[in-house]
């Protein structure tokens, strides 16, 4: 330094400033943000893996020469995914609508409903995804066709 008297004064000031502590809670706030940021990441990764798996599964099903696996037997407890539709993402909102569905429509959609009256109808909860498409169905009650 060209000004010798400045050096000691600067060192003195630097020592005093070094003694000034940052406000409390700074480190915990920063680390909390780190934790928040890294909690989100696995779920993003999972969502991406899920989407990839769904695409691969859909591709494999479409390319399969044989008929699809039989759909699970219908009971009144579970939602059954509608065959050949993309699986729901974990964050996707759905709407449940109860409506009358014809058995023939369900069979056409890929469900295997043994010993059912194809002309009959079914009261069912239909799970509709954000894009307005039905994704899954839960039977409530069967109604036979009037012969």
């Amino acid at each position, binding site marked *: 330094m*060209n000004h010798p008297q400045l050096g000691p004064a*600067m060192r*003195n*000031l630097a020592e005093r400033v070094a003694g*000034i502590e*940052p406000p409390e809670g*700074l480190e915990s706030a920063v*680390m909390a943000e780190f*934790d928040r940021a890294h909690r989100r*990441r696995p779920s993003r990764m999972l969502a991406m893996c899920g989407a990839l798996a769904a695409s691969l599964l859909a591709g494999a099903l479409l390319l399969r020469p044989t008929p699809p696996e039989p759909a699970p037997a219908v009971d009144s407890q579970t939602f059954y995914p509608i065959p050949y539709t993309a699986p729901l993402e974990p964050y996707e909102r759905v709407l449940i609508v109860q409506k009358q569905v014809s058995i023939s429509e369900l069979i056409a959609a890929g469900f295997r409903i043994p010993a059912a009256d194809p002309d009959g109808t079914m009261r069912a909860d239909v799970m509709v995804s954000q894009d307005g498409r039905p994704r899954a169905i839960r039977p409530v009650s069967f109604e036979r066709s009037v012969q």
Partner: protein
Amino acid sequence: MWQAASAFLKELEVPGAPAAIKVIEPVNDGGERALVERFRDGDRDAFSALYKTHQAAVFRFALYMSGDRERAGEITQEVFVWLVHHPAAFDPERGDLRAFLAGVARQMLRRRRREEQRWLPLEEGAAGAAPPAEISDAEEAADLWKAIASLPERYREAVILCDMEEMSNQQAASVLGCAVGTIWSRLHRAHELLQRKLQGNKVRCSR
């Protein structure tokens, strides 16, 4: 690269002012580089270690530049939160983390000042010259603080980085985004101005 930079600095040396040029040495940052890699992979302990190593320097830089302990704390927090969300922004090949973080802090200080000055009367928008309470009781340190605070920003930055924070001219140049020669000339001019301001204070006090 370092040899080239040293040669460049030697060319800049002028009689009477060699001390303003600091010797540039490659930073031995092998450990830090490994920490940065681990932090990028999401290692919490590595990030915590980086925070502990650099937070004080970021805080001091923000404190010198803003003159406000609370604001310096906020800026320090913003810098590290930004780092959390931009882990790939720092390239160890292009410099050391200390200078990089100081550069981020500088940008944040500038942005905040721009936002605030929009709403402040002109006289209040000037940089605060009052030293923090921890310094105001020591007359010499307080005078120097005020003198530094009253320097034009480009000189103040050079003094804070090189003289107060003991960064090399190369590091300061990377923080400020200018040539190493520019740092030297700014320091030279800043020292002259500081000397004049401090002498002026002494003359006023002796009257």
